[in-house]
């Protein structure tokens, strides 16, 4: 047999993994990404004449049920911040696939490599909290929130991706299996306590994301992140809505629930919120002092 060069090895890998699409309505394009469970390709929908993203179970991954479940979970949570699913199917080789809207933009970790003003980043963070809060209201916990699973579009819109390991709270799940990503996983996830997982587990991950989002954060922001990532669930925000509200209060220059203010903190905040007024008062006082001094001399 001929020697298999590195190029041939690479080609064999690609063709081995490539889904066979005869019989389905999509023409395959390039690989867009690779996740824990599947590979995402660009594909062209021949019927509707549009590009879509096609996610197919990775070769060797036998967990068709999980993939199918991901598509069902996505179909249940219709929100502008969650990628809509178009179609689910099974390839000839038995692998499950689904197609979804093709998202254009950059991952949050890539987006953050460019410098952005802190208020813009915080408003972006608030927008990420919205679809997650919506999923929570539908009884679904993402369980794997991290910058790589958040997409930022060209106009600052956000999309939360990769719901493959989401926990549907109405479905019982035994303890033991550890699901999530190290560095973003709540203590209950790390311990495999799946029955303890709820919205606060996602709050924890969002707290970790917040810590990475803002370099050298102000004291109140540090307190917000600390509260979100409290090891005990009861000490965290009860929802991402609460977390986003606290961020909003910080942006509006109001006291945040996570940070009890000292008199000095309060004075500093009031000073920074009312700079113009303080400057006017100071100017007025200076003028009065000068007038008084001239009158005396």
């Amino acid at each position, binding site marked *: *047999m*001929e*020697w*298999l*060069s*590195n*190029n*041939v*090895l*690479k*080609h*064999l*890998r690609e*063709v*081995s*993994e*490539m889904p*066979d699409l*005869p019989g389905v309505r999509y023409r395959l394009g390039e690989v867009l990404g*690779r*996740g*824990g*469970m599947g*590979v995402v390709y660009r594909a062209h929908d021949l019927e509707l004449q549009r590009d879509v993203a096609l996610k197919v179970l*990775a*070769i*060797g*991954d*036998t967990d068709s049920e999980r993939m199918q479940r991901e598509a069902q979970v996505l179909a249940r949570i219709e929100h502008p911040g969650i990628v809509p699913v178009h179609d689910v199917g099974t390839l*000839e*080789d038995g692998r499950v696939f689904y197609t979804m809207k093709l998202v254009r933009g950059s991952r949050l970790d890539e987006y953050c490599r460019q410098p952005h003003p802190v208020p813009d980043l915080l408003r972006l963070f608030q927008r990420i909290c919205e679809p997650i809060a919506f999923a929570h209201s539908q009884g679904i916990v993402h369980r*794997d929130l*991290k910058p*790589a699973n958040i997409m930022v579009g060209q106009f600052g819109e956000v999309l939360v991706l*990769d719901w*493959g*390991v989401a926990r549907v709270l109405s479905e019982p799940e035994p303890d*033991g*299996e*550890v*699901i*999530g*990503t*190290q*560095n973003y*996983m709540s203590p209950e996830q790390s*311990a*495999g306590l799946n029955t303890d997982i709820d919205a606060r587990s996602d709050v924890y991950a969002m707290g970790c994301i917040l810590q990475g989002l803002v370099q050298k954060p102000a004291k109140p922001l540090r307190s917000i992140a600390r509260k979100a990532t409290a090891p005990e669930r009861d000490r965290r925000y009860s929802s991402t809505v609460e977390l986003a509200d606290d961020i909003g209060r910080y942006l509006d220059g109001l006291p945040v629930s996570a940070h009890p203010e000292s008199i000095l903190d309060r004075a500093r905040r009031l000073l920074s919120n009312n700079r113009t007024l303080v400057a006017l008062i100071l100017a007025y006082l200076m003028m009065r002092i000068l007038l008084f001094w001239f009158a005396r001399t």
Partner: protein
Amino acid sequence: MDTDTRIGSGDGRFPETRHSAIAAARSGTPADRAVAHESIVAAYWKPVYKYIRIKWKSSNEDAKDLTQGFFLRALEKDFFDGYRPEKGTFRTYLRVCLDAFLANERQASQRLKRGGGTILLPLDFTTAEGELQQIEIAQDDSPDRFFAREWTRSIFENALLALREECAAQGKQIHYDLFERYDLAASDARATYASLAAEFGLSSVTVNNYLASVRRGFRRIVIRILRELTSSEEEFRSEARALLGAEL
């Protein structure tokens, strides 16, 4: 920072995969162990030989002796009994054992006393040595990366041999020939579907279908080999990703 999603048991208990040569090598009957050992040698001897030649900078003759010695010692001393799936993949374990074995051998310099150049396992070192001359070795190749790539090459070669036999047995020689002409050709010498169709007297659609069917067969055989070489579902998935998903 580890950013990969983790899905796995927290206590390290995984379901055992049936037909696993690794499991049989660790706990089967002596007959099972011998068969399992054969499967392991078939998949790993070339990466081991090339690893010794390139990463340990051994001569051709020394590498032959050390490769033989390593697998024989593994059989005699039940090296593979020490493998614990929860601690990592078998591939990594084997490489760590190999490094330890080579370090010992180098220190004791007992290699010639033990083997003395006798061929003990039927391994085609001439082919392996010929392949070594063609290997593209990157300067920044880590031992892990080098071993993983040669392991991939070895698995694919074994799968291709099995695929060729299977196609011949099923009267699908044309299918295999197309596959060989298209998928095993160097990228700059790869024919188009249209030219293959003209050459083989088929339509482009048939070429496409035949290629898809052989690729499916190839994928099935690769998975079967991987199943043999892993001992748990998690290890299987991790190795499937390493074999088919990671960068070369």
